[in-house]
């Protein structure tokens, strides 16, 4: 049966080295923004910003972060409890509805708020028509708080719902049996069990608020991200902008680090299989109240914004101002997002292989690097890459290569997570079996590892596609001249008050985001 055997060959590299080399090459570009930001922090660039200004920005950003985090924690916690722990009818639908606003980019949310209640806004017009007073232009703290809170609720819901579902009912029953009242049980037994997931949700929201540029810039609330952009746009000296970016990045990395800490501890609370309690029975009144709450939430965070956008598009169609249609932007957004998803899908493979198969310091470093960069606000990455290309890589300045490269590096963890999940289910013995059956390492990877990794790669790539579509600040800073994406179109049209133009682009953005979201939702959100 045997085939003629080729002569033994001298061994050049052990078979796994190539993965390490590739992973290193892939992650090397991540060092550029991190390096520049670290340099910004230690080199004294920060001192080009007056201390009073730094403190003012920190206070503003902190206040917004605290407000958004606490309110979304309350709302998201309540919706998670309703959906996961009670006998509320229509829970599947409720889950989808509660989670969908996450697909609304913050600048689209801001546009909806402005388009509803701003000058000429749909609601303000109706209000004036009914004889009400003129509404002030919605801006500043409360406007940003409203938009960011509504978008953050799904983040909290996602983080908390699994923990609520796996709450150990025997603990509560035991406490009740010992004579504790409902409220006392909630504070002393239920809440401590939920604390890891609540903390994780809070940190995620904090990070999101800290990083947001779209809403705060359109609603003119003075946080770090907006200040960085203003410094960048208004001056030739890049140092103050870099200094601010470095401070922002440092805070963000701290939050990421804290969040990852809670995640590993959270596993202990959520991953153990055990008896789940019978759902809490809501009476008829309770059910009406529950759906009233969820209905209001969905109306305010999803239905009203979409209706406002549609109304503005209709207005434009009727009055004929809708001349400048964003088809070119749509195409650009789609293909740059597709390209990013493809590249990410290719380059993630070695990083996933190395970080799944080897648990050593180097794998930890690669993974930590990917996550650190993921947490750094995009505007800070953009700023760092401007400085980097201007100083060290001039030919890359404002090129598509740079833009896609930065996208890939920023969004890699989104595809790394699902890829590693699927790869973790491929036992190394399958690869060894393939090798002993005569397949080379490459053919083994193509025939065994890749097909088994595919579901994770696909949902990760969909996530990257989605995120790239919605990305605003890094695109704004790094895009080639004239490279206008849908996101930029929404943002600039809204900033200039062309709500009709913005609304059409915004609606298109929501529509193209729906498909990858459906893929991701199937794989990730509803398990």
């Amino acid at each position, binding site marked *: 049966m045997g085939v003629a055997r080729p002569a033994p060959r001298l061994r050049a590299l052990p078979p796994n080295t190539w993965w390490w080399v590739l992973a290193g090459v892939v992650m090397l570009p991540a060092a550029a923004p991190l390096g520049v930001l670290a340099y910004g922090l230690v080199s004294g660039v920060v001192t080009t910003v007056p201390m009073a200004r730094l403190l003012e920005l920190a206070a503003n950003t902190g206040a917004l972060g605290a407000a958004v985090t606490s309110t979304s924690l309350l709302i998201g916690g309540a919706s998670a409890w309703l959906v996961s722990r009670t006998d509320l009818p229509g829970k599947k639908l409720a889950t989808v509805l509660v989670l969908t606003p996450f697909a609304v980019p913050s600048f689209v949310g801001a546009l909806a708020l402005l388009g509803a209640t701003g000058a000429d806004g749909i609601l303000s017009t109706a209000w004036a028509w009914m004889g009400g007073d003129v509404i002030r232009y919605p801006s500043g703290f409360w406007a940003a708080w409203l938009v960011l809170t509504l978008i953050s609720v799904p983040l909290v819901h996602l983080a908390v719902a699994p923990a609520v579902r796996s709450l150990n009912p025997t603990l509560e029953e035991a406490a009740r049996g010992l004579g504790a009242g409902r409220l006392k049980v909630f504070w002393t037994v239920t809440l401590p069990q939920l604390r890891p997931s609540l903390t994780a949700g809070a940190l995620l929201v904090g990070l999101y608020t800290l990083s947001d540029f779209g809403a705060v810039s359109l609603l003119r609330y003075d946080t770090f991200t907006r200040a960085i952009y203003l410094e960048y746009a208004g001056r030739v000296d890049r140092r103050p902008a870099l200094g601010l970016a470095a401070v922002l990045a440092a805070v963000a990395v701290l939050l990421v680090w804290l969040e990852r800490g809670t995640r590993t501890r959270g596993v202990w609370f959520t991953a153990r299989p055990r008896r789940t309690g019978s759902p809490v029975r809501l009476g008829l009144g309770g059910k009406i109240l529950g759906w009233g709450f969820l209905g209001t939430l969905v109306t305010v965070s999803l239905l009203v914004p979409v209706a406002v956008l549609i109304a503005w598009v209709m207005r434009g169609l009727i009055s004929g101002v809708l001349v400048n249609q964003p088809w070119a932007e749509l195409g650009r957004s789609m293909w740059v997002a597709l390209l990013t998803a493809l590249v990410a899908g290719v380059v993630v493979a070695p990083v996933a292989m190395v970080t799944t198969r080897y648990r050593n310091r180097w794998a930890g470093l690669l993974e930590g690097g990917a996550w650190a960069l993921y947490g750094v606000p995009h505007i800070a990455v953009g700023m760092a890459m401007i400085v980097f290309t201007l100083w060290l890589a001039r030919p890359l300045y404002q090129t598509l290569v740079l833009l896609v490269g930065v996208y890939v590096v920023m969004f890699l963890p989104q595809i790394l997570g699902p890829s590693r999940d699927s790869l973790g289910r491929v036992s190394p013995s399958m690869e060894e079996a393939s090798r*002993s059956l005569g397949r080379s390492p490459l053919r083994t990877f193509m025939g065994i590892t890749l097909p088994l990794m595919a579901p994770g790669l696909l949902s990760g790539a969909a996530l990257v596609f989605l995120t790239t579509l919605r990305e605003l600040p890094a695109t704004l800073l790094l895009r080639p001249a004239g490279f206008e994406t849908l996101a930029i179109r929404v943002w600039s049209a809204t900033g200039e008050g062309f709500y009709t133009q913005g609304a059409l682009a915004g609606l298109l953005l929501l529509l193209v985001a729906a498909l990858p979201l459906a893929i991701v939702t199937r794989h990730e959100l509803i398990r």
Partner: protein
Amino acid sequence: MNSSANHRPLAAHALCKSFDATVALDDFNLEVESGSLLTVLGPSGVGKTTALRILAGFEMPDSGTVRVNGQTVNGPGIFVPPERRQVGMVFQDYALFPHLNVARNVAFGLDAHHRELRVSQVLEMVGLAGFEKRMPHELSAGQQQRVALARALAPGPQVILADEPFSNLDAALRKRLRAEVRSILREARTTTIMVTHDQEEALAVSDQLALMNEGRVVQTGPPDHVYRNPATSWVAEFLGDADFFDAHAKGGRITTPFGTFPTTRSGKVKVMVRPESVTVFPHAQGVAVVTYREFFGHDQLLSVKLPGKITLRARCWPQPALAPGDRVAVSVDGIHIFDEPQAPPAPPETPPGTPLPQRVVIPR
């Protein structure tokens, strides 16, 4: 012997391998005869898996050589990757490809030439004809195991390696399947190296045993030969129940409370007695006293205490029904003598309620 080693399907010489501070293999030597089933037997952690992975090419030895059918595949400056060794592998977790059906799993190592024919041939051999279209998760554990075997057999490798191939099965299935696998391998005339820590399994199926301890092979040979002539007390104890006691050899014989035995040794020796070679019968003036009895239906195991702090176990017919305290006479049909005066390795545990006389070895 050495010149024929060139034509062995597989031969390993002086393999050493360490992981950081752990020495997994320390001068490991092994040869397997064509068409035979060799079992590497040893307790867990002695380096069996490491040895097998080196033979398969999944792991690099620190030093030593491996030859497959006379060709060096591991040696100074030589490493032939697994895909070019013609060494098949059956994994403990079977490692079936979950996205391929049975036929495509089995065909994985075949080139297009005669592929279908070979697949059905091999599936027939393992008794799974008609299962071609099933996916791995639609098979029982035993069927998965046979698919794994078929897949390894299909390309006609020089040797098949199997790491604890039956350990994922429940006891009843394990016994049935090991007999089946044995006859499949016989029929295929394949050379096989199997690894296990289960001495009963090893004794039952192997043509050759290689006993392994602390990173090296300590004894090889056919199962009954090794069982009867263990090279060390460790081997004796690992292969089956055995009781030991120290004795003195003088003038070509050893005197024990149950008789005198000839020997070529002299001086301090260690005597090993297997329970099945001990016979007891009730006798009011007998030298021994029954201390413990376990009844199994088809036989019984008696623990008897003899003068000189010697305790022996006797595996004998269920009759007569003896009870602790009964006085018995003892006759022993053959003993084994070791030079080493030191105690054999400590047993894993002691049965509760038994006084600890000298050596009590627990049935595994």
